[in-house]
């Protein structure tokens, strides 16, 4: 830290001597960095014994006519393997059961965002589309940004809307709408030449079909016949997300601390916290290593239960993604600046979600530990 202090002091001494002359102190402002970049990445995700996902993504970003920027991306998810469809207590305690049907699906997504800058203010419009066999989503958004305080502060506000259709490959007659409206406000503040913090609040109001047509709950009772209940969720979901990010660069060691906290809450009763801490360490001019650790904890939805009563409640789900659980996910990323224009990065990560990781204990007993690996390989070319 002494080195930083020395450098800052040297700069202060030079500035003091220079500005004693009849000259101006010009605000130091850079424009946007490159003219454009394109990237390709390949994400692989493997849940032990369950599904595999492979996702190739192609994206690009370009500035044109000095004050315009266009961004676009396209991706395909190729999903294969099995997904649990039934929660049954036939064995004495409720467990997930993989039924005969295996998942084999393709999902295609694409989005385009156009931004125009008017001095300190910029306005962006975006559209997105995604389609898979049993789901279709169309969305648009608008976003305004305002830079003030010599660009040390940026305010952002946005609105988005999505119109989705939910279907089912098992029930071709299912065709239900889900409409969501999203709102966003945020602020980014430069704290020093090497640190910044940003905080964003997002809330959404959704209504429509949230039931998972593939999930069933089979509950046996000490006497009488068992009950099979379909997944029935509320027909609305309102969420609040608060996301705070902190970045702090340490020139003396060539490292950058990245710390993110995310709070999630919805009117289904879910409360979740995510904390991710990463350290990006430049080893030399070409190589950077970024180890990271993410912790996640969530409280169950009010209507989550691995079993049902007789008769089944009006609203109920045994989907363990709505249970109380926690997760830990370490990852390691290596970034290679191949030359001034080309960057290659590779990430490997592991996810373990279990009831033991729920913060303060009290995870849902029926939550079955999930173990997954993921890897990402990406290349970015700036032009």
């Amino acid at each position: 830290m002494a080195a930083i202090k020395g450098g800052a002091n040297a700069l202060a001494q030079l500035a003091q001597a220079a500005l004693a002359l009849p000259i101006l102190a010009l605000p130091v402002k850079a424009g946007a960095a490159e003219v454009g970049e394109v990237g390709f990445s390949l994400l692989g995700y493997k849940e032990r014994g369950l599904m595999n996902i492979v996702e190739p993504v192609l994206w690009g970003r370009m500035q044109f006519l000095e004050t315009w920027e266009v961004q676009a991306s396209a991706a395909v998810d190729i999903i294969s393997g099995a997904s649990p469809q039934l929660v049954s207590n036939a064995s004495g305690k409720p467990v997930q059961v993989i039924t005969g049907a295996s998942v084999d699906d393709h999902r295609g997504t694409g989005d385009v965002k156009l931004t125009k800058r008017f001095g300190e203010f910029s306005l962006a419009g975006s559209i997105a589309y995604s389609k898979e066999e049993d789901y279709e989503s169309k969305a648009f958004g608008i976003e305004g940004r305002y830079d003030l305080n010599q660009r040390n502060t940026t305010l952002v506000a946005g609105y988005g809307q999505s119109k989705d259709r939910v279907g089912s490959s098992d029930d071709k007659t299912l065709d239900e709408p889900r409409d969501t409206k999203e709102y966003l406000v945020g602020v980014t503040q430069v704290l020093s030449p090497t640190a910044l913090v940003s905080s964003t609040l997002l809330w959404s109001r959704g209504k429509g079909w949230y039931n998972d047509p593939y999930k069933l709950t089979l509950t046996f009772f000490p006497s009488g016949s068992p009950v099979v209940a379909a997944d029935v969720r509320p027909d609305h979901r309102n969420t609040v997300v608060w996301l705070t990010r902190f970045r702090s660069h340490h020139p003396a060691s060539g490292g950058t601390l990245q710390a993110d906290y995310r709070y999630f809450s919805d009117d289904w009763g879910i409360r979740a916290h995510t904390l991710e801490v990463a350290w990006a360490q430049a080893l030399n001019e070409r190589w950077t290593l970024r180890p990271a650790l993410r912790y996640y904890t969530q409280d169950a939805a009010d209507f989550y239960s691995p079993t049902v009563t007789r008769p089944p409640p009006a609203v109920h789900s045994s989907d363990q993604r709505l249970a109380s659980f926690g997760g830990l996910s370490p990852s390691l990323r290596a970034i290679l600046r191949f030359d001034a224009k080309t960057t290659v990065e590779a990430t490997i990560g592991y996810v373990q979600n279990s009831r033991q990781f729920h913060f303060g204990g009290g995870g849902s007993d029926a939550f079955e530990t999930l173990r997954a690996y993921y890897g990402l390989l990406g290349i970015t070319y700036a032009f």
Partner: protein
Amino acid sequence: MAAENEVQVYAEDEAHAAAVANAAIAEVKRIEAKYSRYREESLLSRINAAAGKDAVEVDEETLRLLAFADAAFRQSDGLFDATSGVLRRAWNFREPRVPARGELDALLPLVGWEKVEIAGNRVRLTQPGMQLDFGGFGKEYAVDRAARVMAEQGAKSAMVSLAGDLAILGPQPGGAPWRMGIKHPRREDKLLATIPIMSGAIATSGDYERFIEVDGERHCHILDPRTGRSARGLQSVTVQAQSCLIAGSATTIAMLKGREAGLAWLEELGLAHLAVTEDGTVIERF
């Protein structure tokens, strides 16, 4: 100044733009006349002619420029030295000949900022043959002054560049940045990078401006006041700062410190920079 110099101004009408540009050009000419070492009648020539003899009375502007040179000398641990120009007596960059150790050793006693006496408004070079040289900051000061003069004339969107050292008052109309091309230190027809700048000053020092190559080794005009030899380790350094004086001193000091210490110095200053090391590696911190 025999180099590519340029003023660009956006204004409501052509007359105003011309008035702003002419004021900037006049200011640059004033500073050149006052501090050029090539003009016998310049203030600098009079100070140098009196070396080892009398103190010369100088004005407030010159005193403050010398105070800046003093700050740069102290902050660079003696690398930035306004008396090192005398080494050019041994270095002639027009012919490929490296001065012998003895030639440089003979000149080094004439180098040393501590041998400049400043008392009140009087400046004296204590050794006969000593020279003050504003080469390391005179042009940068002219850029800063031109920017100030243009702002006083009401310009909000203007750029002044003297041989690639430049100041930008504000973005182009519509908020677009100025795109400043940075020369490639090894390929004359190629740009190393194009940096978009909304406002601020930029200076570049490189080993490609004036140099000789002898036995495959490059010797450039940026000379180390301790040894008399050329700076090593960096091909070029570009810095953005609040003023061209600050940016220019940072680039010169980084070049003289060399690869490791120079890059560390730039990081410590916390200024946006672009550097090319002797093996061609580009370090971009913009």
